């Protein structure tokens, strides 16, 4: 796939970015401004394609209802005038409304009921270690949920329960931290593999 010019450009940009580790310098800044310009240009083109595909083509084909989002979209740009800036509230409102609609649909099922159902675990009739693990799971789920109760002061027995929830969350945070270390190192390894093997053509 990769022609030599691409490999060289990639290698040069990679080194420019990594030079940030020494200190912030003109090479790094050059790469930074390049990627900001490139990303914005890239996404603008993709967005334009979406507008044409989802908005204009069907509109021309007779789907006149698409005039509505077109108007709302144009209203977004009213922020550049002082007098009509409030018009952009209409487009914000539509975006918020759609976002909320999408969100409630997904959260009720996949996030609320599915997770509750997944916690209904057997404790009897399974090997003892599974039973203990399932019991621990149920206790942590329940106490984590109770940790987030706003209207009750954590005192006495309730405090003990929320404490268990906190411990569970500490495990979760630690676990995410640990796995994140892996991904980040892998990104670095990937870039180094590229520099060593595809650019410098060393053999491992």
């Amino acid at each position, binding site marked *: 796939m990769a022609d030599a010019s691409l490999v060289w450009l990639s290698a040069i940009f990679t080194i420019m970015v990594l030079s940030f580790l020494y200190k912030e310098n003109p090479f790094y800044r050059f790469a930074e401004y390049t990627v900001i310009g490139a990303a914005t240009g*890239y996404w603008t083109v993709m967005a334009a394609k979406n507008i044409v595909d989802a908005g204009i083509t069907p509109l021309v084909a007779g789907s006149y209802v698409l005039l509505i989002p077109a108007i709302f979209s144009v209203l977004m740009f009213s922020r550049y005038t002082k007098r009509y800036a409030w018009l952009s*509230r209409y487009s914000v409102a539509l*975006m918020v409304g759609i976002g909320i609609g999408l*969100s409630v649909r997904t959260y009720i099922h996949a996030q609320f009921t599915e997770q509750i159902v997944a916690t209904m675990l057997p404790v009897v009739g399974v090997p003892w270690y599974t039973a203990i693990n399932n019991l621990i799971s149920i206790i942590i*789920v*329940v106490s984590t*949920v109770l940790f987030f*109760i706003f209207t009750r002061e954590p005192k006495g027995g309730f405090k003990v329960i929320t404490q268990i929830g906190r411990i569970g*969350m500490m495990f979760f945070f630690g676990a*995410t931290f640990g796995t994140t270390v892996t991904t980040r190192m892998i990104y670095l390894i990937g870039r180094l593999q590229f520099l060593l093997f595809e650019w410098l053509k060393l053999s491992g």
Partner: protein
Amino acid sequence: MGRPVHFTTGMGFLVHAEGPQTVAGMAVLGHLARLTARMKAKLIITIMNPETIPMTEAVVEAAYKAEGKEEDYKPTEMILFLSSSQQAYVSGAIGVMHREKIAANIMIGPFFAETLQLIEAAAYIGAIQVGGTARTMNLAFMAAACDYTLLGEEIFAAGAYISQDPVLLGSLVGQDLFKYLAVILVVLGSILVNLGSPILRSLLRT
């Protein structure tokens, strides 16, 4: 005028299942902007998702208007869209933090991999940090490094707490009721499963 306050909603999706997190961040921003207007502090908002540009401008403008400080509202200096590419945004935001020597870094919204870098950069400058997201996987970095962290659901309650609006506070009671319901369902369902009846499971699955 002292050192400025930096605010961001991270990835800041709006037309998306994680849109409400951005809305929750905006509720906090509304309050924050009133405070900075009142105290004549400089406020800087960096943006990754252009969807939130008009919303952010509306929120901050309204806050400054409410405080009678319309003349201090300067959108081109306060509200900076940096890039919609994650890494380009991050390096831009870090640049802003360094140049402006921010005193506080407030991050509430849907956060992705940018979390760690923003927190590290702000910590390097020595800013006070408040973080909050319902994207649980990036919460770990906030919990480990921020001075104050809003864990998951708490970001949705933050706006209500700050506003002290009785209706909003009342709805927090409703939120608690649903959490109790979840606990009851889990316990009851587990008991039923252990008695050999998966009825509640199948009932909820439909």
